[in-house]
């Protein structure tokens, strides 16, 4: 199968993991794919003026309408009996968890066969690192200068509450897992959603070489759970052998420099609770040697 749909030398920041995620997603889906990208850092993958780095048909949607554009494209393809084309929405956390949540909810509730990948860099990066509904507790952004006072929302659970047939999380530290999930999602007869952790050196304040390391730390501390839920049945795909304390993750990033002890304790408690719930539910199945 053809690979390399995205040219090199784009104007994403050095060390951007979103770009890596995008390459993996596009290469897994292959050429029979139509892509919808809203405003956000990924818009640069769609193109600028007369140029595009992407060798796939792509339309830049409106920020709150990625899923609706994709749903319309799917409907148009279905009306023509073209059923062998993937329809991919590739959107940031702001365009997904906040302003785009409504259209995503509508498309998933209707059962439209779209594959929606949310690359989550945990803030509105393209507009200058403003806080989003997916910004974690305690994180500095330009609109949470004293650290975010509230927790993030859980997109995966929101999707699960819709009864979505396929929802998964992924990480650029585990690209094979991501690729496997993209293939599975594309083969799902209904809507599918993949939520990908996306370390961002520019917005999170870490050295450009550290993105993958930080992504892996998020998994090893248990802060980012790598799972898959097929028709409601949960499977944790990567189970850290021994969970590191969340501080190991937090200390790598300037955005958590001002975080208070209470918030760190709250985050650790959240992580511990999540994992004991997972263990109790019997759904923690295997270790991928994280």
């Amino acid at each position: 199968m053809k690979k390399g749909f995205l040219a090199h030398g784009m104007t994403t920041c050095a060390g951007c993991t979103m770009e890596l995620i995008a390459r993996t997603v596009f290469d897994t889906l292959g050429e029979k794919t139509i892509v919808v990208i809203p405003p956000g850092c990924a818009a640069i993958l769609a193109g600028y003026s007369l140029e595009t780095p992407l060798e796939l048909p792509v339309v830049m949607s409106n920020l709150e309408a990625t899923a609706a554009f994709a749903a319309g494209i799917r409907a148009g393809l279905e009306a023509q009996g073209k059923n062998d084309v993937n329809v991919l929405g590739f959107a940031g956390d702001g365009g997904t968890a906040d302003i785009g949540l409504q259209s995503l909810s509508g498309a998933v509730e209707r059962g439209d066969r779209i594959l929606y990948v949310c690359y989550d860099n945990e803030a509105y990066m393209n507009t200058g690192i403003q806080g989003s509904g997916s910004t974690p507790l305690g994180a500095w952004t330009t609109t949470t200068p004293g650290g975010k006072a509230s927790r993030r929302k859980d997109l995966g659970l929101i999707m699960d509450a819709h009864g979505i047939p396929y929802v998964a999380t992924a990480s650029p530290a585990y690209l094979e897992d991501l690729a496997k999930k993209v293939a599975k999602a594309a083969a799902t007869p209904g809507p599918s959603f993949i939520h990908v952790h996306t370390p961002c050196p520019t917005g999170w304040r870490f050295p450009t070489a550290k993105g993958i390391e930080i992504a892996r730390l998020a998994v090893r501390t248990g802060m980012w759970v790598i799972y898959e839920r097929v028709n409601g049945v949960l499977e944790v795909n990567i189970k850290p052998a021994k969970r590191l304390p969340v501080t190991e993750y937090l200390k790598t990033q300037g955005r958590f420099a001002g975080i208070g002890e209470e918030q760190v304790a709250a985050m650790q408690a959240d992580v511990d609770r999540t994992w004991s719930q997972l263990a109790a539910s019997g759904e923690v199945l295997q270790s991928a040697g994280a």
Partner: protein
Amino acid sequence: MRQVMDGNTAVAYGARLSRVQVVAAYPITPQSTIAEVLASFCDEGSLNARYLRVESEHSAMSATVGASYTGVRAFTATASVGLALMMEVIGVAAGSRLPIVMAVANRALCSPWSLWCDHSDTMAMRDQGWIQMYAENCQEALDFVPLAYRIAEDPLVQLPAVVAIDGFFLSHMSDTVEIPEQEKVDSFLPPRGPGLMRMDPAAPVAANVLTGPPFFTEAKYPMAEAMERVPGVAGRAMAEFGRVFGRQYAQVVAYRCEDADTALVAMGSVCGTVHHVVDKLRSQGRKVGLLRLVMFRPFPYDEVRAALVRAKNVIVLDRTPAVGTVGPLQAEVRTALYGTNPPPEVSGFVAGIGGRDIPEATVLRAMEEALAAASAIGRAGPAFVDAPALENWVDVIRSAPAATAVAPAVVEVKSR
């Protein structure tokens, strides 16, 4: 076949006859029954389309755009705040050069809330690159849908189009409508051609991307050029429509204007009333005419000038609240007449907003006021011809719980 139906049903028949392939719509009064009838057409199999029960008008327009990008004929319908919610994507449809047709059952924009007719919704989108046609009756509500697709999909055009029908006055009024035969519509409106924009894995392109100052003008300018080709395309399409279906349409309809001293200008369902007023005054020996705008975008400046240039007085009825300006129809008519010598005296009135009826008396009052005030330059201000004098106007927007406060009795027409 002739059948009694309301304007919304007529629109739905127009969409079915146009063989639309994707419909995305969200309920809003007075549009909702268009969405309902189309849903039942799809359900019963009389229309072979994918029906997207979207969760908002924003998504209705977004999905319609998405569908149109795959090359199918896509349709949506809305009104009022629904159209306002779509507004962000309205420009995407035009800029992406997608020949979508949207029906709008015209309804006032809030505030205050209103369910009823005026043109403030479609007027708010008038410069976004959409063709706009305003129907006068239920037959036109049906006919204008295939006509709009034919014009929009013309290779010389490739722009979206609105078919506007006055909320309630047309959307919910029943009338006898001739339903054209499918074969005739098929011959008038062949399947959508390849178009300019298409999402096709066999020939990938990037569409609607961020575009810098060196190219933005280059993207917009061809839209304006395409819009300039609409009158020619529409004229040919309307002529063929006349040949095929026996109903002749035009971008403007001048009724008894040739020798009129006084010409009234209006759009939409009120034209029926104005028509009647013209006949009545003509029978009294007064030289009065009506110029009806069928197309508001592109604005038919030449036709309007030609029809009005001989009149002494031109009186424009805007069914759109004009705040801090004159009504949009009046502004356009003034532009059309600018530089004519001698210039007709143009007066403009706002009437019939928020569903207020425009009876004969209102039309006559507008005429009498205009003629009485006639001066060298006419009157340009935003005159609300059917506004009562209210002592307690603030109570209208700030209703007290006792609900006794609002008593907007028409005392007299306020002097303006």
